[in-house]
Each structure stands twice: as structure tokens, then as C-alpha cells.
């Protein structure tokens, strides 16, 4: 049974009385298998968030259906297995980090020692143990995103939906969230995320869908979509220039392949930043 099944989803929003309704999502179909990380990418206003909200029952589809592990999204019980982190979330400022997780845990039926353990476990997972008794009002943007991710995981859902999880977060915080998503994947949790930060999506997703003006214009396995089928990459370490020249000559002699270029691969600016600010070599 797929974790997420969206079939021919259409969502129109009323504008003014005389004007045509605005079609935010136009015949979108997405299937996400359990354990996959699916990235929905697209420019602002392309229908990403509306698709997610329809999946969570926060908006009612004009037509089409959404289901989570086979349960209709418009039914409350479909939410038992879902955690959701909205874009730019703000939690109750009067609560501390631990109280926030306790509140959401109680809403999901957790209590007593189980809840207490779960709260401590999640605070450790998102690296907020030091801020557990600090009011949310004093949290930075990155901390808010991480506590948001923790609340999404509180009832140990099988599906986590993340709407722009790294929006407005600095590269360090962004890396932490990326690592958390990878941890979730390792634990077999299905992740459905939407973002317009393409590099991040590329790093974590198994499947992607590109949405534009409400329509899915491309979808499939990430590696299949981005592979350049007629090219081959060879990366050498400590290769002397003579060896490179020899290989190039061999390729030219073969006549069956074209030597395109050689040179030193470049790291990304993000990796450079992370290495300089945290000693991270990855």
C-alpha cells in the first residue's frame, strides 16, 4: 500500500464574484511508496503547499482524491500516521520547547512516562536538549524549524510532510535539517517534502516531481531524471598530469568516444561554508 496516493487532484480557489476561480492545483497525481523520500519542487505559487494541505485535509479538493496509507485524507484517522511541519511555523510562544512537545504528544494520546521519554528523545534528536526549558519566544529560526520537526515526529508517524523545511534557515541549520531527513529515511519513515532549494532536494530525495502552474510537468526517480545518459564520469585522486594525458590520448585513439574535458572538481559554496564554520569535511 503506498504511503501517499494523490489522484487527479484539482483545487480551485474562489476569488471575487465576477472573476474566474483560481486553479491552484490542476490534475496532480502523485504516488509515494513507503520508506521513500519524495521532493515536490517548483517555483513560489506553483501549488506545492496547496497539494500538501489537500493531503492533510486542511483544504478540500475541488475534485480528485488524496489518501494516506489507504485512508481518505478528509477523515481524521488518516492523520494518526502523519507528522506535518508547515512553512515558517510559529508555535505557542508561552510554552517551552519541552512543553510544546508534551502538548502535541498529549494530542496524539501519549502520556506519562512514555510521553516524558519521547520528549527527551526528540529533543536529543533535534539537538535542542540545552533549550528544553527555554520559552519558544526566544528560539532562533533554525531552532523553530527543529522543534517543528520534533513535534511532527512526536507520535512516531510513518509519514512526515515537510513544507519548505529549510526556508530562512542558515546553512548550518539547513544541514542539520537535511541530516535529520536522512536519519528519518534510514529509519524507514516516508518523507514528503516540498522546497525550491533544488540542491537540498537533490541531496535527500529518492523521487521528485516538478510542479509548475499547478501541473506536474516531470516526475520520477531522481537519479534517472538527472543522469546524462550519453556521458561517463571518472574521478581520479592524486593523478599525475602524464597519466591524464595518456588517458586522454587513449580515448582519442579509440575513436568510439569523445573527450569532453578534464579538470579539478569544485566543492560547493555550502560545503566550503560548513567546513570553515564547523570543521565538517563532507
Amino acid at each position, binding site marked *: 500500500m503506498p504511503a501517499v496516493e494523490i489522484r487527479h487532484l484539482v483545487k480551485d480557489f474562489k476569488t471575487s464574484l465576477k472573476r474566474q476561480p483560481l486553479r491552484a492545483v490542476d490534475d496532480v497525481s502523485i504516488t509515494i511508496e513507503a520508506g521513500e523520500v519524495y521532493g515536490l519542487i517548483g517555483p513560489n505559487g506553483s501549488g506545492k503547499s496547496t497539494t500538501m494541505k489537500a493531503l*492533510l*485535509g*486542511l483544504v478540500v479538493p475541488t475534485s480528485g482524491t488524496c489518501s494516506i496509507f489507504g485512508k481518505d485524507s478528509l477523515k481524521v484517522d488518516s492523520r494518526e500516521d*502523519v507528522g506535518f511541519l508547515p512553512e515558517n511555523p510559529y508555535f505557542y510562544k508561552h510554552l517551552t520547547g519541552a512543553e510544546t512537545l508534551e502538548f502535541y504528544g498529549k494530542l496524539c*494520546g501519549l502520556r506519562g512516562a512514555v510521553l516524558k521519554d519521547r520528549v527527551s528523545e526528540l529533543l536529543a534528536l533535534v539537538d535542542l536538549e540545552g533549550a528544553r526549558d527555554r520559552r519558544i519566544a526566544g528560539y532562533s529560526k533554525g531552532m523553530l524549524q527543529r522543534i517543528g520537526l520534533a513535534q511532527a515526529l512526536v507520535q512516531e508517524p510513518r509519514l512526515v510532510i515537510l513544507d519548505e523545511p529549510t526556508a530562512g534557515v542558515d546553512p548550518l541549520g539547513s544541514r542539520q535539517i537535511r541530516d535529520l531527513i536522512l536519519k528519518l529515511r534510514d529509519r524507514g519513515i516516508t518523507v514528503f517534502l516540498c522546497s525550491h532549494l533544488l540542491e537540498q532536494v537533490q541531496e535527500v530525495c529518492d523521487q521528485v516531481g516538478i510542479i509548475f502552474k499547478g501541473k506536474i510537468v516531470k516526475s520520477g526517480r531522481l537519479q534517472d531524471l538527472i543522469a546524462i545518459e550519453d556521458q561517463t564520469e571518472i574521478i581520479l585522486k592524486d593523478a599525475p598530469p602524464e597519466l591524464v594525458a595518456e588517458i586522454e590520448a587513449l580515448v582519442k585513439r579509440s575513436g568510439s568516444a569523445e573527450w569532453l574535458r578534464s579538470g579539478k572538481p569544485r566543492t560547493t559554496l555550502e560545503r566550503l561554508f560548513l567546513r570553515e564554520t564547523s570543521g565538517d569535511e563532507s
Partner: protein
Amino acid sequence: MTARKSIPFSRVRRLAVIAGHAFTQLVRMKVFYFLGFFAVIGIASNFFNLPQQSGPEALGDNGMDLLRLIKSWSLGPMTLFSVVMGIVSTALLLPKDVEDRTLYTILAKPVPRLDYLAGKLMGVLLLLFVSLALMDLLMVIMLQVRLSIVLEVQASLGQSRGWDAAAIESLRQDTLAQGPTWALQGAVAAVFIRSAIMAAIALLISTFSSSTLFTTVVSFLIYFIGHFQADARDFYFEGGEAGTSAASRYLAMSVSLVFPDFQLFNVIDAVIQGKTMQLIQFVKLTLAGLYYVAVYTIASWFVFSDKEF
């Protein structure tokens, strides 16, 4: 991850979680500061120096006037506080959750929308109940202290003037009726019921309103209209005989159906005057309160269940 899957969760417990959270949220907004203000008013009324108080006139109605004054000065701020808090805090909670997107995270959990609405309302009602209980306690203490002084003065003056025991006892009974009676507790309960109705109305308006200000203003308008609801109802029932137009009658009928009848709560003024509240009156008020709160909450649910975020 070591946590077990969530156990089946009773609806009552979930309502209690949401209500408890709404209560904490309001308490941390420091609404209880009002209690300090109330205490100052109460104490001031207790020491209010009536010109007639110091003479032998304290023997008769003036001693009782003082007790009436304390009740009036206490129940007035209680009504003001509970209605303002009931409306404003309810009007604030829902839009704030939408604006901060905390509503998304709550409704993305297995929380039915009715539970969310009812939980929020119950949180406000809990706040009103606790606040009124504390104010009631203050009022009863002040009233009891003053009552014992008045009774003492009356007894000694009555004896010095040679009144017979029956006359002194009769005056004593009249004075006791102005003290902390069950009827007075009924009046405090009526204040709570009225504020609960207003909170439920504010909840309904906030489900379709786009701003806290709009919800607050409209709720206060309904509060005032509620005091004329009974007049509209009488106009409807008696209108035909009076020869008024059908349109006017239907307008009056719609007013009497949609708006609560707050003239039922005039009993509070009667209690301040020392009259008693019959049990049947209290039961009527309670049932009317339950009816209005249930109707407005269900109406809120109808609007909120189809709302998109």
C-alpha cells in the same frame, strides 16, 4: 525511537488537553492582574464612608444599604470582567492560531475540528470559572466581615433603644438576607452563565470573521441586543393584535431566535437588592445557558468544519 504507538485516546482527555492549554495560554497573558484591580474595588467599597453610616441610622436600612453596595460593587466588576474576558479571549485565540499557523500543526494531528473548537471554548470557560470563583471568595469574605459588624451595631442599638426581641430578630433576618446567601451564589453563577454564552457567541463569530477587532465589536453588539431580545419576542407574539406589519414581525422573530435573551439575567439585580433566587429560576438560567452555548458551539462547528486554511 522507543516510544510506543499512541494508545486509543478518549475524546474527553483530548478536550481536556486543548482546554488546559488554552487556559495556560490565557493565564500566561497575565489576565489575572484584573483580580488585583477587583480586590482594590472590593476593599474600597467595604470602607466606603456613607454619610449616614456613623449615626443611629445605621440601625435600619442604611446598614443594609452598605451590604447592598458591597454586592453591587462586586457583581458589577465580575460582570464586566467575565463578559470582556469571555469575548476578548475567545476572539483572540482562534485567529492567533491561524495567523501563527499553529492551527495547521494541531489539525494535522488526529484532532477533530469540533474537539479543537470545544476545547478552546472550555479553556476560556475554565478561566472565567476560576476568576469568578476567586472574586466570589473575596466578595463573600468582605460581605461576611461587614455583615457581622452591622449585625453587632444593630443588636446593641436595638437593645439600648428598648426594642423587643421580635423586632430585633426581624431586623436581623432582613439584614442577613443582604449578606452572603445562596441566592448571591446563584447570582454569581448567573454572571458565569452569561459570560459563557458570550464566549460561545464570540467563538461562532471568530470562525468566519477575519479579525479579532471585528469579532469583539460584533460580540459586544450582540451582548447589548441580547438585553432587548425579550422585547423583540413580545413584539412578535403580540404584534398581530397590535396591527404591525408582517415584515416587522418577522424581523422581531429572527432577532428573538438568533440572539440570546439576557433579560433572564435581571435576576442578578434582584439578588443585589436582597431578594432571593428560586431554585426553579436557577435551573431555568442553567438550562438556557446550556442551550445557548450548545447551539452557538454547534453553529461554530458547522462553519469551521468546511473552513480552509
